[in-house]
């Protein structure tokens, strides 16, 4: 039986309250993420119990499922921070900076390389926030201010969430909406077409963060070349194999960087003054001390990470075999007074531990630590006072991030299990006329990703609703689902749990609201143009697809 949720102004406003609370506490009151997340989840629970007839057992199950969902991300948070601590203590980031400067001394080029191209490359194979956590320290050693060092990769990687991590978000979409083969191909292709826009604006945004329009003008050839490769190659390849489309596109983009470093425009220093995005490099560790290791040793964690991810995920028999090892907890069916039913799960969202990026990071961390230790990098006299604190520093950074991630994911599950997300989605659909719905369809994807911090979860939540709206409104299903997927990708740039993944390694825990302010302009611009693109797609492809 369908639920009996009231789709009226009061309930739409009530459903908006947890999100509004989160934004107010993060952006205006500047509370840290764990604090703002806790307030948001209590509001979501209060709204659920008082306004959506959510009984306590449903609150308990939703909250526990939120904690379980968070464990997926926490496995990445802890292992990424562990790898970061190992590399930082051994001086790998100083060595990396010195090594990279041999190829290019153009800081705008390097910021774009790491904040957009390299983070997209990592998104192609890892995901779950790993790319952001891994790139933030690299940008900081290049001299990027911490807030920008978090904001740039958040913006830079967002577009890759839909088909990155071997298209996990796309595959999840196919699981929740049944599409025949032709519409599935159309949907993948149109999604990839729309993603060209957020990808292009990611390059523009990172260049703008660096030096405004002057930076955009200077970086424009690079941005056009890379976005054509990222977006164009991905779009064409979705017609053949959506699972590998992003991975191949970002790999080509990454390889193209080498010839670009031969171009004096991007090899030599910028012809104008440093921007407010940059700070003075830490001269006592970078310029005065020679690096303790070479570029290869410094890149070792990344090389191991890529090899492990490719070996585990690309050959289907290997990923299928390892993917069979799953752990999960059972939850019974729960419901609300409005007949919102969440079926029993046995187990709920099982965790494929061997194919999880957290395991890749752990597998990269252990040999990296052994290698650095064997080569004596961890015993440098310059950093003697820093040795032995890896675990202490890991706990100090990871605990607040973990609490924030858990709070956001509990909030997300409370909204889902109480029917608040459903009311939000159906409310938007009822208010907006079908003619212009396509332009607003990405917004729903963005909201979903903001709440859940996941492209996949946003699609799982909203793709069925979007499909229903498309059919009822006589709109092409493929175009509306494409708008959902592209919007959900963009939403990753402003998702609080993703921001926390960067503020930890950047050493600016508690400043999540300030980072959000820096990524918000990108999200608004990319959402607007993705909406325009979706509206055009509907016009071109016609009705009732």
């Amino acid at each position, binding site marked *: 039986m369908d639920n009996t949720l009231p789709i009226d102004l009061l309930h739409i406003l009530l459903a908006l309250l947890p999100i509004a609370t989160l934004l107010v506490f993060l952006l205006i009151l500047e509370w840290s993420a764990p*604090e703002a997340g806790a307030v948001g989840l*209590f509001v979501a629970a209060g709204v659920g119990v008082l306004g959506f007839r959510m009984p306590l057992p449903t609150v308990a199950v939703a909250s526990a499922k939120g*904690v379980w969902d968070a464990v997926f991300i926490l496995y990445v948070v802890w292992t990424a921070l562990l790898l970061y601590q190992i590399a930082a203590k051994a001086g790998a980031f100083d060595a990396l900076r010195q090594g990279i400067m041999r190829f290019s001394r153009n800081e705008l080029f390097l910021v774009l390389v790491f904040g957009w191209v390299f983070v997209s490359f990592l998104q192609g194979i890892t995901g779950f926030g790993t790319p952001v956590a891994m790139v933030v320290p690299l940008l900081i050693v290049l001299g990027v201010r911490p807030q920008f060092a978090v904001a740039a990769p958040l913006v830079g990687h967002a577009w890759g969430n839909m088909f990155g991590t071997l298209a996990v978000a796309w595959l999840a979409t196919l699981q929740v909406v049944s599409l025949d083969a032709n519409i599935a191909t159309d949907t993948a292709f149109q999604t990839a077409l729309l993603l060209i826009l957020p990808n292009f604006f990611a390059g523009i945004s990172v260049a703008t963060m660096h030096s405004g329009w002057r930076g955009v003008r200077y970086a424009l050839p690079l941005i056009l070349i890379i976005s054509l490769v990222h977006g164009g190659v991905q779009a064409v390849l979705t017609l053949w194999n959506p699972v590998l489309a992003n991975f191949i596109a970002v790999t080509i983009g990454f390889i193209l960087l080498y010839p670009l470093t031969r171009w004096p425009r991007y090899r030599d220093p910028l012809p104008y003054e440093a921007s407010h995005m940059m700070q003075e490099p830490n001269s006592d560790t970078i310029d005065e001390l020679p690096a303790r290791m070479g570029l290869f040793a410094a890149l070792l964690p990344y090389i191991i990470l890529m090899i492990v991810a490719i070996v585990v995920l690309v050959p289907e028999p290997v990923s299928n075999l390892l993917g069979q090892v799953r752990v999960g907890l059972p939850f019974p069916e729960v419901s609300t007074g409005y007949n919102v039913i969440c079926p029993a799960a046995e187990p709920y969202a099982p965790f494929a531990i061997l194919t999880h990026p957290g395991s890749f990071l752990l597998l990269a961390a252990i040999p990296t630590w052994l290698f650095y230790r064997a080569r004596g990098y961890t015993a440098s006299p310059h950093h003697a006072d820093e040795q032995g604190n890896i675990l202490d520093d890991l*706990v100090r950074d990871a605990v607040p991030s973990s609490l924030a991630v858990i709070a956001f994911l509990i909030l997300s599950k409370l909204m889902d299990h109480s029917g608040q997300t459903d009311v939000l989605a159906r409310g938007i659909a009822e208010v907006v006329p079908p003619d212009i719905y396509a332009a607003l369809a990405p917004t729903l994807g963005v909201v979903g990703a903001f709440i859940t911090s996941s492209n996949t979860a946003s699609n799982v939540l909203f793709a069925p609703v979007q499909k229903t709206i498309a059919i009822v409104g006589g709109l092409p299903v493929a175009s509306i689902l494409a708008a959902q997927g592209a919007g959900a990708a963009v939403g990753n740039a402003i998702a609080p749990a993703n921001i926390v993944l960067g503020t930890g390694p950047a050493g600016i825990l508690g400043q999540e609201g300030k980072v959000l302010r820096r990524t918000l302009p990108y999200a608004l611009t990319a959402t607007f143009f993705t909406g325009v693109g979706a509206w055009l797609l509907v016009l071109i492809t016609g009705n009732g697809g």
Partner: protein
Amino acid sequence: MSQTRQLGSALLALLIALPLISAGMTLGSTIIWGGGLLLLIIGTIVPIYSRVHRGDSCSEKSLHCYWGRLFKSKNADS
């Protein structure tokens, strides 16, 4: 208790709550899942408690003092 210890305890409470709620709901034991829910509430409220009680810049424990701690950002710019 340091802030890291407080937050660490909160994290532990949240992680313990997870199997308690799962087991309690599956076995139909209100006490077990209720205990899990209580731990979950404690775990999520600790960051707010920690914000109110961190440091001690207030000379008196007045409502005004707590209000100031709650709604004035302490985060320095980077």
